[in-house]
């Protein structure tokens, strides 16, 4: 579904991503791991078009989307929940979700999806008329994910969904993410919390200093103490 072929990304004179290739097939959950500053967010930004691709190509559903702007890529079915959630604090939960479905023209479908998700996440129904800014971190993350889902995406990219959340909330969020697969979604999840991410991912990539260090199945990475030690750090056996 998504093919990233030898993509490099520059920020000014600095190269943040060096010729990285990765792919995500339909129905898969793929995780992109690596330490801070490895270029994970830059990679997502290049896929969604917020930063230009310096070299290489991004292909979605067989079409080169290098030259499409962000809005057009969202219209084609790619979406991202950005790092730090970026819930619209001055809008209500309801308004956040309506805006999430901004590209859709099927009002009935939107209303149906809204009901489905509110049933899945009763806390959002409870907070429906409250401002997004009044929600807790975990609730905001849920809202951000559901807001992205409201656009009816084919590929959902999540940037650090567990960042800054309490451990039991992280569990909830990851449960929610693995549940999305059953809804026919394809996911690309950027995480620093490798252990948790590898529990639900099918395949994994590891970036370090903008270079691709590992590509393989999550199983392979999870069961190899050497690989984990080399790329993810100590104390994870």
């Amino acid at each position, binding site marked *: 579904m998504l093919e990233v072929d030898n993509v490099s990304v520059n920020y000014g004179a600095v190269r943040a991503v060096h010729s990285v290739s990765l792919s995500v097939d339909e129905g898969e959950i793929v995780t992109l791991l690596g330490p801070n500053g490895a270029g994970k967010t830059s990679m997502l930004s290049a896929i969604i078009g917020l930063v230009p691709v310096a070299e290489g190509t991004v292909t979605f559903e067989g079409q080169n989307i290098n030259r499409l702007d962000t809005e057009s890529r969202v219209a084609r079915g790619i979406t991202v929940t950005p790092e730090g959630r970026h819930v619209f*604090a001055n809008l209500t939960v309801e308004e956040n979700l309506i805006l999430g479905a901004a590209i859709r023209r099927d009002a009935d479908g939107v209303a149906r999806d809204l009901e489905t998700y509110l049933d899945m996440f009763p806390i959002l129904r409870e907070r429906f008329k409250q401002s997004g800014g009044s929600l807790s971190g975990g609730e905001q993350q849920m809202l951000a994910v559901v807001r992205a889902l409201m656009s009816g995406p084919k590929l959902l990219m999540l940037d650090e969904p567990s960042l800054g959340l309490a451990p039991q909330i992280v569990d909830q969020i990851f449960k929610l993410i693995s549940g999305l697969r059953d809804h026919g979604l394809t996911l690309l999840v950027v995480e620093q919390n490798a252990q948790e991410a590898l529990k639900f991912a099918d395949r994994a990539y590891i970036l370090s200093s903008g270079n691709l260090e590992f590509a393989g199945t999550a199983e392979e990475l999870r069961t190899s103490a050497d690989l984990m030690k080399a790329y993810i750090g100590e104390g994870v056996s």
Partner: protein
Amino acid sequence: MQYVAEQALNALSIGAEYSLLALGLAIVFSVMGLVNFAHGEFLGVGGYIMYAMALFGAGDIWMILPVCLLTVVITAVLLERVAFRPVRRAPATTGLLTAFGVAIILQNVFLMGVSPRPKAVPAVAVLNTTVDIGSFTFTILQFLEAGVTAIAIVLLVVFMRRTKLGLAMRAAAHDFTTVRLMGVRANRVIATAFAISGFLAGLAAIFFIARRGAIDPFMGLLPVLKAFVACVLGGFGSLPGAVVGGLVLGILEVVLIILLPDFLAGLRDAAVFFIIGAILVGRPQGILGKKAELGDKTA
């Protein structure tokens, strides 16, 4: 009693005019961080189109009003496209200088295209007709100004709360990138902000010119400054703040005209700004602005 009622309506109508202009400034600023100092020239555009229509025999007021509104809206959208869009990613000062440049160009178009001298625009003077209610005397203009502004604000609130584009504009004021991630086109949001600011300025132009009866190339200068002051007073970037700031400014002006003795009347603006200065010392964030400290995250 009669005097108080008449002056109260007067204050309300002048305040409404400032509110219309301040709202237009605030909408564009909230969405894209641009203080559009060419906003005052929208009054000029409205005024000169009225003048031109009267000149070419299309002086019927029911023709003039919609054409004036439409022309100002189109001008606003056009200016965004040709002048402000190319510098959108540039530092804020570039946008500010662009706005001044646009203002100077428009002033000179009026100056060279028509005349450096004031021209009478009697077409909308009919709005100055007085009406007597009991023993009170008002002009139609004062009622219209207060009433139309109130309606415009209500419509704006409905638009900002009930439509996707309105939601996107409110969201964009805090986090434009994420609005684009929702698939909402940045260009559409910004063009809409300019169209709305143009529409409100078009309304203000009608009232402003009806009140003055004449146009001149630099007529937009003072109103845009007043609107800017109203925005600062209400809390910069806040739409309710712009409305409140405009009203307070209008009321202050009228009250001071009444209170100041004749020989001090020339100090009216000085007194108004002194009071506004005092308010801002107490509330630097403006009447409705949120208190923020350097380093606070705004989103």
